[in-house]
């Protein structure tokens, strides 16, 4: 959180709509462990990471639907050997990513 904090502060000051994605479970040779975070804005800004770049695009898409609905979601990403072009982790790891609106409760 510390690494993405300055960006979040800046975005909030600018009135950006922000979603926060957090790796809540990781297994196998996942590139980032539980606790890794990616913050994104409606306007397409990104800070941090939840993988080695493999699933950030998909997380961004999902984050937009979470911002639309206002409902948090858990998304599972695993190995994608069956469909080579599917979104997945080529390293063979598996991660669960919790995606939520970054808002005051």
């Amino acid at each position: 959180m510390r690494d993405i904090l300055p960006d979040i502060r800046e975005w909030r000051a600018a009135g950006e709509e922000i979603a926060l994605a957090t790796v809540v479970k990781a297994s196998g040779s996942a590139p980032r462990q539980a606790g890794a975070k990616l913050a994104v804005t409606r306007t397409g800004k990104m800070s941090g990471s939840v993988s080695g770049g493999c699933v950030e695009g998909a997380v961004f898409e999902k984050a937009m639907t979470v911002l639309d609905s206002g409902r948090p979601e858990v998304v599972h990403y695993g190995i994608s050997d069956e469909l080579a072009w599917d979104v997945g982790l080529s390293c063979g790891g598996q991660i669960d990513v919790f995606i939520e609106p970054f808002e005051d409760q």
Partner: protein
Amino acid sequence: MSGIHEQLLNAIEQEHGALLATQITGERPGAKLLVLDDGHVAGELFPAELHDQVRADAGRLLNSGEATTRSYQVGDEQIDVYIESHLPPRRMVVVGAVHTAIHLVTFAKEFDCHTTVVDAREMFATRERFPHADELHVGWPDEIMPDLNLGPQTDIVMLAHDPKFEDPAMEVALNSRAGYIGAMGSKSTSADRNERLKARGFSDEQIARIHGPIGLNLGGKTPPEIALSIMAEIVAVRRGKDPRGSQSPVKPAKADQ
């Protein structure tokens, strides 16, 4: 009252320890409980039974530094709660502004460690030698150290190699809650220092906190090599692999280092 996320950001900026629990399944995914190390509590998990269970675990998890998802049994239901502990920033206090200290501060910066260098000798503790240190103090280490917030997140590294500076500083270190204490010096230098500390009333248990001779056995000779071996030992200790343990996969420095 501001939101939980906002309160967490504030806590991190103010260098508080913080525990954030986020419910990821059950009736209210996204519900949060925040517990700070000063006792502040905010937010609510649902149902109340879940809230109480997580609240009961919070104290123990607050200083774990871990991020993990735990399952709680609430009635017939299992509810997953993602819990992350945010520790205050790491600090390193280096006593002795010697050549090795210059390299050690460089390494420590790579670990996002807040670095403080202390030496009574003005000639050594200069900004020219330590442009990269967050804090540089010229003065007696035992007088300066009590003001440095020596908590569990602090590593204290003694490189002055002179009992005149180091013995009083070591007493401050041993009376602190620092997570790591290491001191440069051969096995016999270390043994002599330990005898002096014993004579000053410190117990074997207290003295056993000192890593000396400092560092892992990398076979290094030069200042950057020695600094690396010190940094490596700190990583090992912080990761629960104390090199002095008989089962440890890493080995402490040789006596002649």
